[in-house]
C-alpha cells in the first residue's frame, strides 16, 4: 500500500436475532433450510390490511446489545418506514428506525496486536426487519426469479460504527469481538456463512496525517473534518474472508485512483467472488430517496429507567470481564483466557470443570491451567464429554505421568512371578489370561492402562516357561 494514504472504514453490521417468532408477526423466525414460503402469514407477506405488532423480546435483545456496546438508551424511540422498490420487499417499504433508534452513542474497545487498545465509537444500534430472498433459477427451461418470503420479517439489529477503522485487521478484530458479544448474549448465532451476521463496510482513503505507528486513541472533531469527500459502500459480503478481500481490493483500487491524482467516485460496489474484485452497483446520482417517515401502525416506544435497569441486569458477564477474571482467579495467561472464553458455553464448561477438579482431585487437585490446556490442545468435545469426565481423564493421565516406566515394569514382573500359571496360559494362547494379569498389575499401580498393556505384552513375550 502507498504509505501516502490510509483507509478510513466505517461498518454497518446486521445481526439476525434468534427469537422464536418474527419481528412483527407470530411466524417462526427460524427459516434456515425450510421449504420456501412455509413460514409466512398475511403480515410478513405484506398483504393489504395486515398490520405489524412488534416483538417485545426482539426489542429487549436489541437494547441489551446496545447496553453491552456501551450505548445509552433514549427514553423514546420509534419505528419508521424506509421506502424502496425491490421484489423481495413485500410492502414496498421496510420497517426500520430512522432518527430515534433504540440505542445511541456506544463504545467498543478492541485489542490491537501488540497489546494496545483502540476504542471504536458505535453511532447507533437499531431494530428493523429482514426482507425475503430472491432465487434465480431455471424452471422448465425458463430463467425465472422466485421469491422466498420465509426470511421476510425476521428481526434484524443493525450496529453502525463511526468511521474509526484504519486497517483491515482492525475491522477483523472488531467483527470477531462483536460476534463474541452477540453470542454471549445468546441473541443470535451471528454466523456469517448462514447470513445471520452481515457486513456492509464503507471505505475511503485519506492522506495519512497521523504517524502510521500511532492510531488516534480518541478521534477528535479534527479527525472528523478530515474525512474524505467520497465514500464507497461495499455489499454482498457473505463471510469474514470476503470482507477482508473486498476491503483489501478497495484499498488498492482507491489508492491507485488517488495516486493518479483523481478522486474515486462515490458509489456502492459489490464483492464479486468469481472475479475476485468489487464491481460498481449504484452511483451517487442513483441513490435512493428512502422517504422515511414515522411508522403509523406502531406507537412510539417509551422506556422507564427501571425497565432499562432490568435489561441491564440480564446481561451476562461479557468476554472482556470474563477474561480478566480468568487470568486473575485461575492464573491463566492472557492467550489461554482468550481461547477459553471465545464462546460462553466453553467458558462455563471450563469453570464447571475447575469446580469438579477441586472436589474430585482433593488429594492431587487438577489445576485450572491443566483444564485449560486440555480444552485448548486436546480438542475435547464439550458437548459429549462431561466436565467431571474430563477431570477424571486429566487425573488418570497425570497419575500415569507420575509413575516411572521402571515402576510399571517392576509391577508387571511381580504379577507374572506371583501368577506363573496365568503367564503360561497366555503363552499357550489363552488371551483371557492377559486381562487377568493386567488386573494384577493395576492393583499395584495406577498408570496409563495402554502403557501397562504394551509393556505387559513385551515382558510376556520375553518370558520363558
Amino acid at each position, binding site marked *: 500500500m502507498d504509505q501516502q494514504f490510509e483507509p478510513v472504514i466505517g461498518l454497518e453490521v446486521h445481526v439476525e436475532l434468534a427469537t422464536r417468532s418474527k419481528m412483527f408477526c407470530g411466524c417462526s423466525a427460524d427459516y434456515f433450510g425450510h421449504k420456501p414460503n412455509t413460514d409466512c402469514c398475511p403480515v410478513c407477506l405484506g398483504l393489504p*390490511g395486515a*398490520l405489524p405488532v412488534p416483538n417485545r423480546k426482539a426489542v429487549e435483545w436489541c437494547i441489551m446489545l446496545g447496553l453491552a456496546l456501551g450505548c445509552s438508551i433514549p427514553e423514546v424511540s420509534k419505528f419508521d418506514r424506509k*421506502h424502496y422498490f425491490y*421484489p423481495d420487499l413485500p*410492502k414496498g417499504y421496510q420497517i426500520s428506525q430512522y432518527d430515534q433508534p433504540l440505542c445511541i452513542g456506544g463504545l467498543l474497545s478492541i485489542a490491537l496486536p501488540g497489546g494496545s487498545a483502540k476504542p471504536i465509537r458505535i453511532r447507533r444500534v437499531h431494530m428493523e426487519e429482514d426482507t425475503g430472498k430472491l432465487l434465480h433459477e431455471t424452471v422448465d427451461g425458463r430463467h425465472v426469479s422466485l421469491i422466498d418470503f420465509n426470511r421476510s420479517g425476521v428481526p434484524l439489529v443493525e450496529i453502525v460504527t463511526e468511521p474509526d477503522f484504519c486497517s483491515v485487521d482492525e475491522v477483523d478484530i472488531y467483527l470477531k469481538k462483536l460476534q463474541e458479544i452477540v453470542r454471549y448474549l445468546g441473541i443470535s448465532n451471528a454466523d456469517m456463512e448462514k447470513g445471520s451476521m452481515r457486513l456492509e463496510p464503507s471505505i475511503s482513503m485519506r492522506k495519512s496525517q497521523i504517524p502510521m505507528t500511532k492510531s488516534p486513541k480518541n478521534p477528535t472533531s479534527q479527525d472528523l473534518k478530515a474525512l474524505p469527500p467520497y465514500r464507497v459502500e461495499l455489499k454482498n459480503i457473505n463471510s469474514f474472508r470476503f470482507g477482508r478481500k473486498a476491503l483489501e481490493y478497495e484499498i488498492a483500487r482507491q489508492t491507485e485512483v488517488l495516486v493518479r491524482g483523481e478522486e474515486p467516485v462515490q458509489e456502492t460496489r459489490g464483492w464479486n467472488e468469481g472475479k475476485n474484485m468489487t464491481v460498481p452497483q449504484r452511483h451517487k446520482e442513483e441513490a435512493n430517496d428512502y*422517504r422515511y*417517515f414515522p411508522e*403509523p401502525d406502531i406507537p412510539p416506544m417509551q422506556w422507564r429507567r427501571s425497565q432499562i435497569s432490568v435489561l441491564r441486569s440480564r446481561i451476562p458477564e461479557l468476554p472482556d470481564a470474563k477474561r480478566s477474571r480468568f487470568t486473575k482467579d485461575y492464573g491463566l495467561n492472557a492467550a489461554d483466557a482468550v481461547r477459553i472464553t471465545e464462546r460462553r458455553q466453553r467458558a462455563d464448561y471450563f469453570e464447571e470443570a475447575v469446580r469438579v477438579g477441586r472436589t474430585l482431585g482433593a488429594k492431587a487437585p487438577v489445576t485450572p491451567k491443566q483444564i485449560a490446556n486440555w480444552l485448548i490442545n486436546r480438542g475435547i468435545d464439550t458437548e459429549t464429554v462431561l466436565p467431571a469426565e474430563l477431570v477424571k481423564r486429566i487425573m488418570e493421565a497425570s497419575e500415569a505421568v507420575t509413575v516411572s516406566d521402571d515402576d510399571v515394569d517392576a509391577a508387571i514382573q511381580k504379577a507374572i512371578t506371583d501368577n506363573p500359571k496365568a503367564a503360561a496360559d497366555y503363552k499357550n494362547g489363552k488371551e483371557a489370561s492377559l486381562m487377568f494379569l493386567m488386573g494384577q498389575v493395576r492393583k499395584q499401580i495406577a498408570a496409563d492402562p495402554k502403557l501397562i498393556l504394551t509393556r505387559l505384552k513385551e515382558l510376556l513375550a520375553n518370558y520363558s516357561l
Partner: protein
Amino acid sequence: MDTAYMTIEEARQKLRARTISSRELTGMCLARIRRYDGSLHAFLTVTEDEALSAADEADRRIAGGLDGPLLGIPVALKDLFTTKGIRTTAGSRIIGSYVPPFDATVVYKLKEAGAVIVGKTNEDAWGHGSSGENTDYEPTRNPYDTGRVPGGSSSGSAAAVASGMCLMATGTDTGSSVRLPAAYCNLVGLKPTYGRVSRYGIIPMASSFDTIGHITRTVRDNAMVLGVTAGHDPYDATTADVAVPAYVPKTTGTLKGVTIGLPKEYYGVEGMDPDVAKTIEDAVLVFKKLGAAVRQVSLPHTGAAMACYYILVPSEISSNLARFDGVRFGLGRDTFGPEAKRRIMLGTHTLSAGYYDAYYRKASKVRTLIRKDFADVFGTVDALLVPSSPTPPFRIGEKTADPLTMYLSDIFLCPMNIAGVPSLSVPAGFTRGLPVGMQLAGPQFSEPLLYKIGAAFEKETAYYNVHPEGF
C-alpha cells in the same frame, strides 16, 4: 311497517319471536339488490350463496335457543374490508381479482356475532373521494336522487342501507368517508375514536387517520354494532386497551346538564348552503328544547386543517400503496386511477428529501395544534355540533373536474380525523327533498355520550322514517 326498512332492533325482535326467519330477511335483501342495484351500483360483489347458508345457520342457531348481537342480520361490507375467500377490490381495478386468505378482525367479529354478509360495497377506490365517483367501477347513485352522489368514500354502504338492501353496512372514515355518505343518505354514521376499532385487515388509506365505522338507520342500531366491533386487538398495535362499555343502554336519558358547543369557525363560512344552515339552526333549537345548553366555542386552527390533512394523508397513502407493484398479485401500477395517482404523487413529493421538513414535518406540527384545539374545547363543552357538509348531496359530475372543490366537501369532517376524536353523523332533516346531516363530536372514547345526544334528537325528530321514493 315496511320490512325493507326495519331497524336491526326490530329485526332482532322478529327473529327471536320467529315471525320472520333470517332466510326470509336475507332473501328479501338479496331480492332488493337484484332489483335495484342495476341503477344504484351499491355492490361490487354480492355473496348470495354464502349469505343464504349463513342465514340458514343463523336460523338453526335461533331455533336452538342461541343468540348473538347480530344473529341473522343481513349486513354489507365496504370493499376495503378483507374477507377470507371473498374478492376484495378496494374499489380499484388493480386488485380487482384479489381474494384474501384471511378475515379482517371486524369481519371476524361480525361473523361471530351472527351477522349475515350479503356482499361487498362500492366505494371511491382505496377510500379516496367524497362522492363515490372515484371508484374504478360504476359510481354509486344516491337513492334519494339518483342524479346525485351518495357521498363517499363509503358510497355503496350508504346507498345499500338507505335503499333497504341490508340493515347495516360497514365503512371506513379517514376524513369523511362514513359520515358524509351517512349525511347524504339520511343515515347514522359513526367515525369512532382512533384506536377504538381494530384496523387489522382493513386495506389502509392513511394509517394514522383511518377509523373503522359503520352506517345504520338509527342511533340505537349504530350503538349495537359498535358493541360488536370495538375493543383492543392484539393484531393492531394502535388499538387502545380501553374497556368497551355497553353502548345501547347509553342511548337513553335526558340532555339536561349536557353542554353542546358550536365552533364559530364552522358556521357562516363561504360556500355554506343557506338551506343547510337553516336546517342546522333548527336542529340547535331542538337540542335547546331537549334541555341541552348550547354555546359558541372556537377551534382556532380550523383554517389550517385541510392543508394539514392533504399533506399528511397523501404521504401515508403513497406509502400504503407502495405494495401494489404487480409483482405478486394485482395489475401494474399504471392501472391506478387518476385520483390514486394524484395522491401517490403528492405524498411522494411531501416525503421527499428536501421537502419533508417544509411539508410533512410542518403539517405534523399543525396536527398537534389541531389536536390541542379539540382537547381545549372539550374542557369547556361536552360535545360539538357542526354540519356534516356545507351542501346537500351534489350532482354526479358536478365536482369531478376540480379535485380541490371535491376535497372541500370534507371541510367540516376531516378535522376530527386529524384529532382522532369520535364523531357521529345523524340525520338533521331535509332540504329541497335532500338529506342534511349534522355531526356530534366529542372527546376520545366519548361514543356513549354522542349516542345519547344523537338518540335524544332522533327520538324527537324520527327522520329515519323518511325513506327514498321508488325503492
